[in-house]
């Protein structure tokens, strides 16, 4: 099991993305990198930033950024640990999470709303990482 939000988790996530034919197909025209941000709370004195660079159906780079200023991605999606956990467990639909402001998204909304299928395949990839959450 891999601790959620760590550098090892980011690398395992990248591996799953690059193994997914469904993601490659759905995201073949996607260009854009992300910070997935786990907000600071009892388990995390500082927010965790997982950087993922997605380009034409592949993940070119992924790591946990100790210093978030190292990258300036075009999208930032942030939410509390509990909500990320529910997305990965597939009990919270990420689009419903965004619509109810359980997640916040910064970036080009037009672009993201046109990539629903790719987003869904990305969530499917997170579910394949054997993830351990803090208790």
């Amino acid at each position, binding site marked *: 099991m891999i601790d959620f939000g760590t550098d090892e988790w980011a690398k395992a996530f990248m591996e799953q993305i690059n193994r997914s034919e469904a993601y490659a*197909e759905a995201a073949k025209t996607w260009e854009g990198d992300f910070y997935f941000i786990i907000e600071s709370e009892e388990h995390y004195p500082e927010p965790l930033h997982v950087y993922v660079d997605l380009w034409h159906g592949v993940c070119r780079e992924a790591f946990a950024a100790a210093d978030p200023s190292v990258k300036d991605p075009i999208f930032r999606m942030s939410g509390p640990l509990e909500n990320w956990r529910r997305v990965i467990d597939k009990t919270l*639909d990420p689009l*419903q999470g*965004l619509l*109810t402001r359980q997640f916040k998204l910064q970036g080009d*909304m037009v672009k993201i*709303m*046109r990539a*629903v299928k790719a987003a*869904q395949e990305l969530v499917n990839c997170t579910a394949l990482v054997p993830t351990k959450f803090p208790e």
Partner: protein
Amino acid sequence: MWYFDTPMIAFGEGALAHLKETEGRRAFVVSDENVAGLGFVETVQEYLSRAGLESECFLSVEPDPSLDTVRRGARALMAYEPDWVVGLGGGSCLDAAKAMWVLYERPDLEPEAINPLEPLGLRQKARLITIPTTAGTGAEVTWMIVLTDADDDRKLGLGSRENLADIAIVDPSLSKDMPPRLTADTGLDALTHALEGYAASWANDFSDGLCLKAADLVFRYLPQAYEDGTQGEARERMANAATLAGLGFGNSMAGLAHSMGHALGGVFHTPHGRAVGLFLPYTIEYAAREKPQRYGEIARHLGLSADLESKGAASLVRAMRDLLGRLEQPLTLAEVGIDRESLVERMDKLLDNAANEATTVVHPRIASMDELERLFLCAWDGREVDF
């Protein structure tokens, strides 16, 4: 968590007179020439004037309104500065009114940027009344806005919960003059909303009852409204069914027949209700092969044979095809007049459009690109979905 959104709704024969209660200075009516030709724009303006409001109208909304039309309407709104926007007509007029209103409030936005993820801050300048003159789209009570990007042969699913109308007026006397083909097309859109809204993965306790009631009303009253448009009761129950279905799927989601219908409409300009009604039996067959439960529940509610869930889904598909037959609707894309070569030639575009609709990922069974292509081909010549 989730939300349930609804405008205040005035419904039933004579509901249009509720406009006399409007408080304000100035209203801007968004409609089209057809609706004006039926005298409804004039009636609406008359009621508004009795309420003490001046009004002006924009009658250039085309079927499948373009981004450009919406920009033009918004400019007219900015010049007139109304405190009410009134959408009057079919889904195209209502969606155009919603989008024009948003741009009037937020001139800094481009229409394609109207999204549900960021606060818009509406109602600083005006509020919205929606008045349907067809019985189908439910656009009077939903916040979704469908616009067409003519340069990209694509329908855009836009909208924000904030751009839901303040007041919806559902008066059956406005839909009684619809010709039979339009009655059938729009009625099938309502049925598709009801069935897809019930089956979608976003369905919830608040939306379920609305979808079931709407489906029941459409099966009972659409054939009568189609065969004899003078049937007052059938017209009234269909008007109610369309709004109930709008509330149902608007607070849940539609499904794959809508993804395919929008994709087809973007490329081949098939009327919305005809397209989604045509695809619905195929997308139900496809989903029911793995997830028949919700369709079985609908079948049971409708009193169709449904002792097993899978049997219920099959009865529902049969009832749907019987209804399409009775309404003399096309059952295949070939019957719509699309030849196979054109379909295959535009397949990549259709698949790309359909895959990226939110309705695709909330369908009970999520289609891969390959399956989507096979569904389009099944719908072309009416083959059973066996995958």
